[in-house]
């Protein structure tokens, strides 16, 4: 699994020191000591607070909005409606070009005519304090005329159903299919057919820190600074610039400490877009922090699916084919810019992924309804695909009289079959389902558990044992969305500077929201340069924020690792003396030889980006890292569970991050996509 892919150096990381070590997080102490700085902690001079009056109806015409009484309330600076913001902000449409036939109505920060879900922000009130703004919000009088809402999958597809968007022909947002061919024949001739219908209730990510934003527009320079609890500052720099017509170079998005994201904090939210416009209208910083009740009705939801699936099974338990219908009900429009269709798309592509299938067919329907918008949330589509697949596999085992382990062992892709592709088209580089299943069998002491289970059953206690295999998509690169026209991580990268005093400053675009990004980057950079991570200072999370937040974070590796480290350094020095290629060889705390930093280097390996030295700073900035989609796929169940604690980088942090779990894999990811070893 860790075998290098194309054009990786022959012997990467020949000086391991940090990668692979269970190191403490350099930022953990700061956060534990309460010295985190979240958007909520930021108070800017002349800052105002926004609150939103929300629709109590799932679907209603906004007949009249009376803001006069609210405007007259103490401390109120602005009451804005959809029309006010529409004058500043261009609409957005949540479709991706490569999803053929996908449709979604244009969206604005606040609606003009209709509210389309219960909880949608309709009017914004800006006042000196949040409390005053809430007082005034109570005085906003909106006359709603209720319209028939669409509230489930069947309603959305019914003949003559109300339409969520009158401008669209029906409630179908996107439809897609997959077909290897021959599926009907396989089913017709199979010894057994097993099937099930699966309903998944809506989920949402509940972060400790809610969504939070301060937009600070300075009309004198036409400059917008946004302090944003987000996973994707570069994406928002692009979006705010484009939709508000500000030059990109004058938009700065800073993601300070972020208290959890889980995919919730990378979508365009109407309130967030509105806050930018409110700041422009007022020429003052405007803050909005969603409280928990608002989060429930405005943070993206996910996983509202109904899946009908069946599998054709041979008499000996071989699973021959799967046939799947996934219907998913999203919000009243598709979320921008990642859309609300990726989840369903991944469901139909990930079903059956760990298994060898001769045939596969899937039909996906993504339907609009009058509910909170949906989009990417943790492990997009994976849990649904896994639940459906594994249930079918269990049923197949039951039909064929095979134990759950046996039916899986029989059908899994063989460990020597790689590279190969799934029936749905995902390319796999090197997975190890069989080895992993065997290891699981031993680790859980399956036979003992089974006998305990039987013994408990005799006492009336029903205890279940569940086994699941899955393949997780990781590291799909900026092309994942880029191909559809969404500029999501096109600008991700890292800048490494070496200071005159011999310290390393690493500025990374990907953000840290609790999953250890900064630790990982520190490990990679320290090992790559052959220095102690104590002298690597990492700064994350800001489009154009580099250099602004440079903070000293001295994390010390635990004692034994330190000692091992110094032994390693001695070896390294020995190798260096022996002439091994080591651009920045030398002791951890030694100054960098100036001669390296004074040269200028072209670096074709970085896709044409130049590796140049500006004064004493060395810049490694890769703009586009493209990875084969399958390259990062792996079998999660096959890894040490320890590795998953604390999570890793999600697929959304594609480019700079590399793989997302154990440090070893991080290193592998780095080899492929991020810091290539560059001959200096």
């Amino acid at each position, binding site marked *: 699994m860790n075998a290098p892919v194309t054009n990786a150096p022959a012997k990467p990381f020949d000086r391991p020191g940090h990668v692979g070590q269970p190191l403490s997080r350099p930022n953990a102490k700061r956060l534990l000591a309460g010295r985190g700085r979240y958007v909520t902690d930021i108070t800017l001079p002349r800052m105002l607070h926004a609150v939103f009056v929300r629709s109590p109806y799932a679907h209603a015409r906004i007949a009249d909005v009376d803001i006069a009484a609210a405007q007259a309330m103490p401390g109120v600076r602005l009451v804005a409606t959809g029309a006010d913001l529409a004058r500043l902000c261009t609409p957005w449409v949540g479709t991706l070009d490569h999803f053929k036939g996908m449709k979604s109505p244009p969206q604005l920060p606040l609606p003009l005519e209709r509210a389309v879900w219960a909880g949608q922000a309709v009017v914004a009130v800006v006042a000196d*304090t*949040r*409390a005053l703004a*809430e*007082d005034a919000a*109570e005085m906003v009088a909106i006359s709603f005329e209720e319209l028939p809402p669409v509230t489930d999958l069947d309603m959305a597809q019914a003949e003559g159903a109300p339409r969520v968007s009158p401008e669209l022909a029906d409630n179908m947002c996107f439809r897609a299919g997959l077909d290897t061919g021959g599926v009907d024949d396989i089913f017709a001739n199979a010894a057994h057919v097993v099937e099930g219908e699966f309903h998944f209730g809506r989920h949402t990510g509940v972060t400790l820190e809610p969504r939070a934003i301060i937009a600070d527009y300075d009309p004198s320079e036409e400059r917008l600074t946004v302090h944003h609890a987000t996973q994707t500052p570069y994406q928002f720099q692009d979006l705010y610039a484009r939709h508000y017509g500000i030059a990109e170079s004058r938009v700065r998005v800073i993601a300070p400490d972020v208290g959890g994201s889980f995919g919730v904090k990378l979508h365009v939210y109407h309130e967030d877009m509105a806050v930018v416009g409110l700041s422009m209208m007022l020429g003052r910083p405007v803050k909005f922090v969603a*409280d*928990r*009740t608002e989060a429930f009705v405005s943070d993206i939801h996910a996983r509202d699916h109904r899946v009908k699936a069946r599998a054709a099974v041979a008499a000996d338990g071989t699973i021959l084919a799967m046939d799947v219908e996934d219907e998913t009900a999203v919000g009243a429009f598709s979320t921008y810019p990642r859309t609300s269709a990726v989840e369903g798309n991944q469901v139909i592509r990930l079903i059956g992924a760990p298994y060898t299938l001769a045939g596969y067919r899937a039909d996906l329907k993504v339907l609009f309804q009058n509910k909170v918008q949906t989009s990417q949330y943790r492990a997009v589509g994976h849990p649904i695909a896994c639940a459906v697949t594994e249930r079918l596999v269990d049923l197949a085992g039951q039909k064929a009289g095979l134990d759950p382990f046996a039916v899986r062992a029989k059908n899994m892709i063989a460990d020597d079959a790689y590279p190969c592709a799934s029936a749905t088209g995902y390319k796999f580089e090197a997975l190890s389902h069989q080895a992993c299943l065997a290891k699981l069998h031993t680790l859980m002491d399956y036979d003992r558990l089974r006998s305990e289970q039987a013994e408990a059953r005799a006492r009336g206690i029903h205890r279940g044992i569940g086994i699941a295999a899955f393949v997780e998509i990781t590291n799909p690169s900026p092309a994942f969305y880029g191909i559809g026209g969404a500029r999501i991580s096109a600008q991700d990268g890292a800048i490494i500077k070496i200071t005159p005093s011999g310290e390393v400053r690493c500025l990374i675009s990907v953000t840290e929201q609790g999953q250890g990004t900064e630790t990982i980057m520190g490990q990679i950079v320290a090992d790559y340069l052959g220095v102690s991570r104590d002298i690597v200072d990492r700064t994350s999370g800001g489009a154009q924020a580099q250099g602004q937040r440079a903070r000293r974070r001295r994390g010390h590796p635990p004692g034994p690792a330190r000692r091992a480290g110094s032994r390693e350094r001695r070896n390294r020095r020995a190798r260096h003396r022996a002439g091994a290629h080591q651009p920045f060889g030398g002791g951890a705390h030694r100054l960098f030889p100036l001669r390296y930093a004074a040269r200028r280097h072209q670096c074709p390996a970085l896709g044409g980006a130049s590796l140049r030295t500006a004064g004493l700073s060395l810049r490694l900035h890769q703009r586009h890292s493209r990875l084969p989609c399958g390259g990062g796929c792996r079998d999660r169940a096959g890894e040490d569970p320890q590795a998953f604690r604390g999570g890793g980088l999600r697929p959304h942090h594609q480019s700079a991050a590399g793989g997302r779990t154990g440090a070893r894999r991080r290193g592998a990811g780095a080899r492929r996509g991020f810091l290539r070893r560059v001959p200096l």
Partner: protein
Amino acid sequence: MKARAFSYVRSETLADAYAAFAQAGDASYISGGQSLVPALALRLQAPELLVDLGAVAEMHGVTLDGDMLRIGGLTRHAQMLTEPLIARHAPLLAQAAPHVAHPAIRNRGTLGGSVALADPASEFPAMMLAMDARMEIFGAAGTRLVPADAYFQDLYQTALEPGEILVALHVPSVGPRHRWAFDELTRRRGDYAMVGAGLQGLFEEDGRIEHIRIAFFSVAATPVRVKSVEAALAGRKIDAALIAHVQGLIDAELDPAEDEHLPPAMRLHLARVLLGRLLQTVSSPT
């Protein structure tokens, strides 16, 4: 989530508090604030005046007077777990307390506040029924005692008239022949129960039940006793057949409403399970 602006007064006597409340017209008492403050923050309530009862002397302290334990209304939930007099004389409260919310809330929330609010899913109000407690209420005509059976009237409605103060709870002390048990079913510890119940009974030396009071919560608009079950148990010794018999009476006794959490049939099922467990517990001496 910010409360609307309000005025605040901390009274030192019941009379002062009562007068301040009456004068304001739109006032709320505040004890531990664990139910009131969230309601203010959500703007579900927006009184002009908060009358803080925290400094009223008569509402503090736990004392034993003959066979009656008097628990001041301001006694915190956490004290149910630490107060020796409660452990000795009103052990059902001590048994219920760990199931009420979480430590931080138990440190502030008060018994008086809980019983005054009378949330139908709350533990302590139901225990008042099971223990046959009396509520000491201060009102225009001075102080009166109301038995638990007459106190809980409808959803969040009690014998408290507007402006009246729940001063203390009077609980008959348990003796050597009493047995009691408490249990509830929750999805997560600290949540309000899907179904909960407590019982307390006087048992004969030979194990027969002389009389017993069984109170359920989270099954109706108020905490409720299951009187047909109590009657069927009187004079009997608990065994499997008796348990099965009285479990069968639950359906006729309780009529839970449909809500977004549980269908009525499931609540009834859980109530039967719980009743069986509690009776099993007290089938041998506590």
